[in-house]
């Protein structure tokens, strides 16, 4: 009897907590079926400074892991998008729209990602989205975006499947595994003249995808693959480094993220590896230099491929880096710039669709507009082909000249490769 009383009371407490927490947004929410018609009254408190009459609220969602072990990159995505919204949202605000960010935490798990996707889809204010970090979350979640016609721009997912399903709503501002890898391989084989390569990846969809394609390309070229390893280890690479040093390949290709790779590079160099390190766009972070130190500049040095031009070549990128650090207190992690660009795509598309529709656009209109967007972003020129890929991805091959964080800007472009998207499949 007492227990039941408790259960009921606890339920009431939960309910009232939820009321307190969510009363405000619930009150301003409009019914689903006619967003445009009922928006106006809710917007009475729109700031006068935005000028013009109030046209309604537009939200742009982000989904990425904000908590847990992968939050480093997930938060970078959110922050990149947030900065873009702040800096570039002016045009839409000028048109009378209140533009807001709705950051969702997918916890790097598909369950939460899909649930959030359905939640996002059910919020009529959300017209576009930026995310995810993990392909494993993006792929199932994008099924929901697809059915709801909600455009999503991915700043990080390089798994081919993301776009090869041919969904009109799914786009990405990054290359694909099967694009980046051959570019890197060609550089290793042709420019560096490597004879043997040791391939290692981080056992994620991203790393393994790139690594597999790299291997494919290497085998086609006759570049000897000494070993092909995946590892989830993040701290102690002794067990891999030891046979690696014994094999002494010309190049070690690491497909993964800098905070794992940096430790690996350092330990491999310390153990006596003299050859060249290569990495993917996951290496594009100044922290890499702090972690790996002079392992990057000694021996055969280090090269990485990236779609984002270095600060030296792109003044906009330098500006972005300093703005980012000013706002968030730390330099941008990988994918922050891509998220900035993704948000930029969303904003431009919504703006174009709103202008075309003469009012609040539908999701369909926004999704169609996304495919029309062209822009010169932080990470190069962006446009989308008919499946949402960059039609040609431009890859910069950078040579690392930094042994500390502050020198990261000294990295130089040694090669630029243009690779066309392979489209739907072979």
């Amino acid at each position: 009897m007492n227990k039941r009383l408790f259960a009921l009371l606890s339920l009431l407490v939960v309910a009232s907590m939820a009321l307190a927490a969510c009363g405000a947004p619930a009150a301003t929410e409009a019914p689903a079926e006619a967003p445009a018609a009922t928006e106006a009254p809710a917007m009475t408190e729109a700031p006068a400074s935005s000028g013009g009459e109030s046209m309604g609220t537009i939200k742009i969602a982000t989904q990425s892991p904000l908590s847990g072990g992968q939050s480093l990159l997930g938060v970078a995505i959110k922050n990149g998008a947030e900065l873009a919204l702040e800096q570039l949202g002016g045009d839409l605000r000028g048109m009378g729209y209140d533009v807001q960010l709705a950051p969702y935490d997918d916890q790097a798990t598909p369950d939460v990602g899909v649930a959030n996707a359905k939640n996002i889809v059910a919020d009529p204010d959300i017209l576009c989205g930026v995310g995810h970090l993990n392909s494993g979350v993006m792929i199932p979640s994008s099924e929901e975006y697809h059915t709801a016609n909600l455009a999503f721009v991915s700043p990080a997912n390089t798994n081919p499947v993301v776009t090869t399903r041919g969904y009109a709503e799914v786009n990405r501002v990054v290359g694909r595994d099967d694009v980046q890898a051959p570019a890197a391989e060609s550089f290793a084989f042709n420019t560096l003249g490597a004879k043997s390569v040791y391939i290692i990846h981080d056992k994620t969809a991203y790393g393994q995808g790139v690594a597999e394609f790299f291997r494919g390309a290497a085998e086609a070229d006759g570049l000897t693959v000494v070993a092909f390893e995946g590892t989830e280890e993040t701290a102690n690479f002794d067990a891999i480094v030891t046979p690696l040093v014994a094999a002494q390949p010309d190049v070690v290709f690491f497909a993964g993220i800098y905070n794992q790779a940096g430790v690996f590079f350092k330990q491999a160099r310390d153990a006596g590896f003299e050859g060249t390190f290569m990495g993917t766009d996951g290496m594009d972070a100044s922290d890499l230099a702090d972690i790996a130190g002079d392992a990057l500049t000694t021996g055969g040095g280090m090269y990485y491929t990236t779609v984002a031009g270095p600060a030296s070549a792109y003044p906009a990128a330098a500006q972005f880096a300093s703005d980012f650090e000013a706002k968030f207190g730390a330099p941008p992690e990988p994918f922050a710039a891509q998220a900035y660009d993704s948000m930029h795509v969303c904003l431009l598309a919504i703006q174009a669709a709103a202008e075309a529709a003469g009012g609040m656009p539908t999701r369909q209109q926004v999704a169609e507009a996304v495919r029309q967007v062209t822009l010169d972003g932080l990470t190069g020129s962006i446009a989308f082909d008919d499946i949402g890929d960059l039609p040609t991805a431009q890859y910069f091959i950078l040579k690392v000249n930094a042994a500390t964080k502050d020198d990261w800007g000294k990295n130089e472009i040694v090669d630029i490769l243009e690779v066309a998207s392979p489209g739907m499949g072979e």
Partner: protein
Amino acid sequence: MKQIAENPVYKFFLFPIGQIIVFSLGASLVLSLITVLLAYIFKFNVTDFDLVERTLLILPQVVINGLTIGFVYSTIALGYTMVYGVLEFINFSHSEIFMVGGIVGIQLMAYFEHIGVLSTMNEYLVIGLAIILAMAISGGLAVTVERVAYKPLRGAPRLVPLISAIGMSFFLQDFVRLILSLTTGEFNVILPKFGTFDEFWVIAIPAMANPLRIQIKSAIMVGVTIFMLVLLNFLVNGTKVGKAIRAVAQDRSSASLMGINVNQIISITFLIGGALGGAAGVLFALKATKLDPFSGFFPGLKAFTAAVLGGIGNLTGALLGGLVLGLLEAFSASYLGIFTNGAFGAEYKDIFAFAILIAVLIFRPSGLLGETVGQKA
């Protein structure tokens, strides 16, 4: 003979060191022999190079790698096993205590770098200070965690403190992240570069083509852990408090009848376990060079496995378990790829470790050195 056994120098110094040497050499030797044997068997499978030669080429290095990480596992495992010994529950948040130790250590070094004294200070002094600070903070944290999250649950069904520990583990991860984010804006903590730890001692061995290369860092890790283990051995076996800890672990109600303040002893146990974890954290950080609030999880899991492998609740068992697990990992990760011609690789090392664990437990259900009568009355 009896005289020697009772001699404190032997009892608290020579014996434990001897034990450690026997364990590490024994385990290494057994695994090395098996590996070389396997190399002969698989020789015909590999055509690119001479398998036996390659095996022998890297063997010393693999053993050193295994021992280095094995000692770290042992030190963390001791924290699990001590708490298990007195409270019979798995302190899930120990991996976070360990992580905090590592981060505190790195932050201290980063602070020295920041105020510009790092390069002028004696490098070993820096490490010593970092370890001491980490031990203090991790130990204090462990005691606090016990007071807040476990003590109120004493006497509850055994799964209840386990869940509380899991909750504490979540909490600590994000709490550390919160603090790091607020102070540094990010949560990767990177070891500043100083000293000569990355360098190698090269020892030429006449019978071998390649010289033996031992990284100074590895030597420090092994040296400090052995020192800690000997110290712990003295603490537990040679002092009154240590005896009280053992008494509480063996029979809590009897211990209280001896006038032992059981709560105080439990706190001290957490303090020691936490301090060991903190020290292990700093050593691990030396190797890993980068930590984040989530990097405690995997080493913690491994150390926990090591504790069980050795027989949870048994201090010597934790030492042996850690060494065996570290060596197994190093061997399987280094050789699986070579032996199977790339069909299996380092990624199977965890499967290997767990398979061995299961095999050991099937034949010795209470671990390598555990009591055969598993349950306490």
